[in-house]
């Protein structure tokens, strides 16, 4: 998977779980949870959905490395 494909998958999952969000609201360098009002519960649902789509389950210890969209893409590229 290319970085661009991974990015699209992540955006799709965010919009799926928080349908109130518009794609334009997603700033690739903003803190996902705080900028989009994603609570820890929905964040876990997003990571769960991504583990199914991409095949990588982010351990809790690595949450600091997936805080923004760009960081999340880097993380999945690095671990795939």
């Amino acid at each position, binding site marked *: 998977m290319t970085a661009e494909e991974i990015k699209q998958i992540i955006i799709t999952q965010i919009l799926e779980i*928080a349908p*109130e969000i518009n794609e334009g609201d997603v700033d690739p360098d903003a803190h996902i949870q*705080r900028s989009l*009002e*994603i609570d820890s*519960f929905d964040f876990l649902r997003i990571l*769960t959905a991504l583990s199914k789509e991409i095949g990588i389950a*982010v351990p*809790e210890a690595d949450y600091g490395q997936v805080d923004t969209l760009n960081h999340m893409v880097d993380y999945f590229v690095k671990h795939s």
Partner: protein
Amino acid sequence: MSTFAMPSLGADMKSAVLMEWKVKEGDRVSKGDVIAEVETSKGVIEIEIFEDGIVEKILVPEESEAKVGTPLAIIRGLDEGIAAQEPAGSDVAAKTSEAEPPSTPLQPVSDEPIEPKRVKSSPLARKKAKELGIELSSLSKDDKAVHLAQVESKKISSTTAMGGMRQAIAKAMSRSNAEIPHYYLSTAINMTLALHWLEERNQERTIEDRILPAALLIRAVVLALQEVPQLNGFWMDDDLHMSEAINPGIAISLRKEGLVTPAILNAEQMDIDTTMRSLSDLIIRTRSGKLRSSEITQQTITITNLGDLGVESVYGVIYPPQVALVGFGRIMDAPWADGDSLSVRKVMQATLSGDHRATDGRTGGQFLNKLDQILQTPEELL
């Protein structure tokens, strides 16, 4: 025979729209079954029945508005054999209920041109959409009925006018601050041990089964309330009524549309896994607008966790007739003194808002102490 009436789903509710019957005449129902869906300012609520019996007659047709207390159906007890008046009775009743619903009249549909493909919606949603000039068809997804909340959220997103949910919250909170003499207590809790314990448990689990700190905190509150039950209950008729069941109302944000605090019912009977599963289920159903009547009427205390928003401490307003609210802030790295050594630990502010008519600061203090103790021995949280 007994009548099943439109329940009150909050002090501010005067009427609701019966959207859909989940049972038909002749069906057997048991205590706790969902028998209908109604639409209120809080969204679509599934209403439950609190007795066993057989649905004798349905009195209010779907998509009609009924005031609180309006009989919606007649329920025959299981031991009451088939009533003698049935041959005459049921037939007539069935006819009348079709011809003239005993509820508040439907919104007139005559001025709505009959479209080839009519968008299903509640009368309230239809009326509101018309007022606001919103096309109902623009809100309809997969042929599902359009509810008032959807129209209102559309309104909120396009104007600054208040939605029904905002008004409901406004009423309840004004009443709370006018009636309840609040006291507030706060304590810093070292969460390092509890989070470490949780992380170890979660490492053994798949991502689907991970437990969130939010569930751990709910479980800790429930255990602390078992030791300090005076904070779990209601203030009614100038007296404190403690509740045996612990039904914590969990403040769940709907992001752009407000806040609901539905309960995890009988949380005292759950372990940490069941608490997490119930929390997940509750959040998903809250955000998709599928709560049950018992969940929005039987809260015995409220828990608000604003840590995800980066807030440090929460001084909450109690939801009457409850007598307490527990607030949790962000878990953050902070200096922590232990004996004469200073280190950096995961620290969280826990607060308690108490109703001073029901309890004193002493009781609130005992609760926060107990909560702290429990969180220092996380293996007891299982």
